[in-house]
């Protein structure tokens, strides 16, 4: 009994860190929302571009770059990652999933080259980090929770504005109906490339923030990122889908989804789950949630009553 209480007593202390991690991954999940939900493209580049963002940011900071500038460069690196996948998909006709896998694999080598080894740490005392887990429990402006929350809100605000513009609407149309979009004069290929670029830019930004937060960049830090991103989107929709109708709130729910994911992960680890099983658990959760709509429609669909009107039509036809 005492053991259980002492275990549970550890949970509150671990929460700020889990929330900070969740918020940072939430930025990545918002990027994924862009491709997965709006463009309806499954982009696996993210596993690579997440680490690219971290690598670029840390290496540039070690070389004396201003942290904000390093973050911007990570953003641009993400744009380039997306450009490669986008062109492989549109200009060369490779299915989106495969194009993403190819870029992701290539990025593993590139990330190794950027860092020069598999892992590079950065000292919080010597460098002016934007976010660090050292301050996560402090009531101060440099608390990473505040910085990341501000960045998240800014990104959501920009997205909200952008998807209301002519260009933003045309990107949404591209995801909704390709044939219709082209018939309405929309350059669907360009929109796909643009969308995949921006999404990966956000993913790389998220990776850059995470590597600052944890104090190192690692070539493997993006492994399974797509699953975490999908989990965040799905959790967000499951928990807030009914109440958050507005587009900005839907994006916020993705961020909240990531926070919930990391809080849950933190709790199960604190309770004593083998951390090695974490990815298995994540994959299982995402698989179940993705399967539910399909199974529901297949086995639990309510029979539709045939109305008199429809019967009449059938007779006429």
């Amino acid at each position, binding site marked *: 009994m005492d053991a259980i209480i002492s275990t549970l007593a550890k949970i509150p202390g671990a929460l700020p860190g889990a929330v900070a991690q969740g918020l940072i991954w939430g930025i990545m999940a918002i990027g994924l929302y862009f491709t997965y939900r709006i463009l309806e493209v499954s982009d696996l580049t993210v596993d690579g571009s997440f680490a690219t963002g971290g690598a670029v940011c840390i290496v540039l900071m070690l070389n004396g770059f201003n942290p904000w500038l390093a973050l911007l460069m990570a953003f641009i690196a993400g744009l380039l990652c997306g450009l490669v996948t986008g062109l492989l998909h549109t200009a060369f006709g490779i299915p989106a999933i495969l194009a993403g896998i190819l870029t992701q694999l290539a990025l593993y080598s590139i990330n190794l080259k950027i860092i020069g080894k598999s892992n590079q740490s950065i000292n919080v005392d010597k460098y002016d980090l934007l976010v660090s887990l050292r301050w996560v429990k402090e009531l101060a402006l440099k608390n990473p929770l505040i910085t990341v929350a501000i960045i998240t809100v800014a990104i959501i605000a920009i997205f909200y504005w952008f998807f209301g513009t*002519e260009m933003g609407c045309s990107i*949404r149309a591209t995801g*909704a109906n390709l044939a219709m979009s082209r018939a309405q*004069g929309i350059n669907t290929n360009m929109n796909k490339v643009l969308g995949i670029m921006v999404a990966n830019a956000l993913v790389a930004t998220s990776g850059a923030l995470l590597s600052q937060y944890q104090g190192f960049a690692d070539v493997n830090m993006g492994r399974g990122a797509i699953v975490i991103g999908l989990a965040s989107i799905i959790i967000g929709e499951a928990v807030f889908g009914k109440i958050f109708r507005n587009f900005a709130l839907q994006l916020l729910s993705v961020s909240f989804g990531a926070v919930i994911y990391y809080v849950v992960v933190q709790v199960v680890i604190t309770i004593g789950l083998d951390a090695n099983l974490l990815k298995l658990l994540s994959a299982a959760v995402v698989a179940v949630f993705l399967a539910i709509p399909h199974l529901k429609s297949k086995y639990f669909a309510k029979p539709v009553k045939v109305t008199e009107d429809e019967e009449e039509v059938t007779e006429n036809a």
Partner: protein
Amino acid sequence: MLDICKVHKSFNVGTVNEKKVLRGLNLHLKEGDFVTVIGGNGAGKSTMLNMVAGVYPVDSGKITIGGNDVTKLPEYKRAKFIGRVFQDPMTGTAATMQIEENLALAARRGKSRGLKIGITKAEREHYRELLKTLDLGLEDRLTSKVGLLSGGQRQALTLLMATMNNPQLLLLDEHTAALDPKTALKVLTLSAKIVEENNLTTLMITHNMNDAIKYGNRLIMMNNGRIIFDVSGEEKKKLTTADLLEKFKISAGEELANDRVLLS
């Protein structure tokens, strides 16, 4: 207005399934022509429309719209000249977007899309007026998702989107075939009204011979990738379905044995 010149198109070239769909097709449309197109399955009607719209490239030949050579233009660039309504009501509109958003997308066809706001207040009022002309009650549902509409409503909306900025050419690809007879008649009547009011140059494919005779000022019959019968003006008005079947027999040397054509 529209010139299709010696257009050839084959599919699955080099395989056992090779099919020559268009064999040196020639067609010239004058401004304001409303042409109905009939023909059996596989005659090349839809392929002709898709060639004009740029869905896939021609093997050889030339297509001009209003004097502009569009043969090499991608589909999205040709959209500047063309309004289209498809056979499947799901194809012409974006289900997950609002009615007014769909209209705003169509309003910007052929224009550059920048970072200006997607729908202005003035536009919204304009759309409300446009939707009133459909007489489907859609003017009160501007922000409803299009996915909530019926097939007929979606087809009417697509028609509005296709014609709202007076395209040089309107392509209707069996756009009432998937609708029930009552709705089909309504959409068809509406199409004819819009075409007439705006004097739109139109190509309409139909499987219904009565409709082909009733609407438009010119009728063409296709078989095996060519036009085998072309009639307009007074002569067209006097046509009967029996005439058409007879014409087909003479020109094609076979019966127009197609259930959909015969039954409709």
